[in-house]
């Protein structure tokens, strides 16, 4: 059992928790993920490491309430326990030789982008962070990003905060004004990552994307997380989750992500009914 040390709602649908898991905290690095089960009959879900404290022994997770599992996880409070927490899994984000980086985060993907930005900042790289949200009330982690970015651009779809528009606009402007990042790292919805790749392509700037497909064991056993990268089958859990954005077959990844859409909808409705009227 793994104790919830701290819990904070970042916005109405996104929650942050610090989980006491000293072995995982000791090893975790930016870009890696964990798998948890909220309860002993729950499903296994992968969540990217959003931060850690090796001395205090906790790992930070940030999750969006998208389905039954994240809803029951969100009902747990500080001092309560989650059933299982395993990691760190996957390969850390590559940082060697990168001195000037643009980090693009979309929605809850910003939870993953934050430790990556912090890592580059710590290593002394120039960090330009572009984060995008649908609207102001969904904005998360602005202060944290400010602290680790040389430049921060906040975008909202509806213009309720920061600039109105999508993340590829400031990225494209930077390229047009002659900016040549060593690398762009995009973390967010599949469609956003696909368009970040298209934006960077004319300038030949390398793009790393962080993939978050359906997964069960997270150790390479099930193959459910497979992607086509550079024409080859890769497993996000052991080969990734970071991949060369130019090689990822995004359309296939988008299709595969909806494999259980019907089931998830039913589960979500059942969970909503269950929690309705319960505080």
């Amino acid at each position: 059992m793994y104790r919830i040390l701290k819990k904070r709602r970042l916005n109405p649908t996104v929650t942050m928790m610090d989980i006491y898991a000293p072995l995982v905290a000791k090893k975790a690095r930016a870009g890696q993920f964990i798998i948890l089960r909220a309860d002993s009959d729950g499903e296994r879900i992968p969540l990217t490491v959003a931060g850690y404290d090796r001395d205090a022994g906790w790992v930070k997770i940030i999750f969006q309430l998208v389905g039954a599992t994240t809803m029951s996880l969100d009902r747990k409070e500080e001092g309560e326990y989650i059933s299982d927490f395993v990691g760190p899994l996957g390969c850390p984000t590559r940082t060697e030789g990168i001195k000037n980086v643009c980090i693009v985060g979309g929605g809850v993907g910003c939870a993953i982008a934050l430790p990556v930005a912090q890592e580059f900042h710590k290593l002394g790289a120039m960090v330009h962070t572009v984060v995008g949200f649908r609207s102001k009330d969904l904005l998360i982690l602005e202060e944290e990003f400010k602290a680790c970015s040389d430049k921060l651009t906040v975008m909202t779809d509806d213009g309720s905060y920061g600039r109105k528009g999508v993340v590829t606009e400031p990225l494209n402007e930077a390229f047009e004004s002659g900016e040549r990042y060593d690398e762009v790292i995009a973390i967010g919805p599949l469609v956003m990552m696909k368009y970040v790749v298209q934006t960077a392509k004319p300038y030949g700037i390398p793009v790393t994307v962080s993939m978050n497909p359906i997964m069960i064991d997270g150790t390479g056993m099930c193959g459910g997380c497979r992607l086509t990268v550079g024409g080859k089958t890769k497993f996000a859990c052991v080969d990734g989750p970071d991949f060369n954005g130019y090689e990822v077959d995004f359309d296939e990844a988008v299709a595969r992500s909806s494999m259980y859409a019907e089931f998830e909808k039913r589960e979500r409705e059942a969970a909503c009914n269950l929690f309705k009227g319960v505080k």
Partner: protein
Amino acid sequence: MALQPKKYEMPLSDAKIRARSFCEVALGYSPEIAVLEAQRCLNCKNRPCVEGCPVNISIPEFIAKIKQNDFEGAYRIISESSSLPAVCGRVCPQETQCESKCAMGVKFEPVAIGRLERFAADWHNAHCGEVSELPEPNGHRVAVVGSGPSGLTCAGDLAKKGYKVTVFEALHVAGGVLVYGIPEFRLPKEIVAKEVETLKKYGVDIETNVVIGKTLTVDELFEEGYEAVFIGSGAGLPRFMGIPGESLKGVYSANEFLTRSNLMKAYKADSHTPIMHAKNVAVVGGGNVAMDAARTALRLGAENVYIIYRRSMQELPARREEVEHAEEEGVKFELLRNPVEILGYENPADKRDPKNGFVSGIRVVKCALGEPDEKGRRRPVELPGSEYEIAVDCVIMAIGTSPNPLIKNTTEGLEVNSHGGIIVEENTGKTSKKGVYAGGDAVTGAATVILAMGAGKAAAKAINEYLSKKA
């Protein structure tokens, strides 16, 4: 008494009913039948059956106890050699091991050793919970990586010699392939849990949610004071064929399909883990895993389940009993067929059609058997122009696995072969790294539960010798 030429039948649940339920297929002997079957044993002097057992159970001796109605005594004899008797009695291929050497088998059917083993273990589990005397602790610590059949066997044997053993398991529950791979109807998970509980009573610690190679490395285990490490991390990444359409929705590896159903209980209506309940299913492959996947698909409600295998029934590697059970339940065998493409549904008029991107069929080519390959198995030769389509909405690939790189990549000095399997000394499981032993599928690639147990046992013996010398 006249010699009974045939094995006493073990009752099976009705094929029509069981094909739609996850209840256990084979129901086990009653005490009366067990004693009668035990009386078939000739108790021959040279004990050929023991030679046929990868863990060398004293077979005639335990059968003699059953003859005398001393069922607990029989269990004690088995458990001296096997840490998982109730499991082996169910999933071992006895017909190619102990029973194939049985003297009775020369003229008649061999003694049903597997069924008797299962009987003794089940009787023990139902009537006695206690373990025999606990050994005196010897002060040595050993780490075991993986809680599948090889790891549990190695841990059990060492614990019984007084070692303090910790088993590290990556998943949230112990048992490895016994819980994620082999289905409930063949091996009830309650039985695996009981066997694990027995090991705990011998003092074995089981740490779940620890991935060796990620959470901790093998070198860190030594730093923490473990004096020897056994790697039984199992087979790894599922193989795919590399044919078009393998990324369509509705294509599973057998590992994923079985893990969803067995480990995550997706077959239960209230499970939070989804699984496809397909109407028509193609399972590619002919091993025990393929049979397990096919029979699971049937139980999840499929109307037609096809085993697609590129050789003939004679070469089919699955256990005969499993093939027979699958046939009785209605699994169809498309033999001498090889898949060339998986077809997907695409509605050009409606991009939002929810069926888009799901499997709609599989195209196969007919094969004939040609010259034997290096293993002596006749090689399938595709017949040009013989392709046809089978309408299915789910395809399960059960064509084996390749070793998992997690431990290899993080353990300096651990040598692996060109396939990625850990290289070991054959009779001891000793690897190229000092104090590190390995066994099971991590070494051999996909094999059987009992071979993994045999390897775990051999390694336990070698670890005991190594640490006794060291001390």
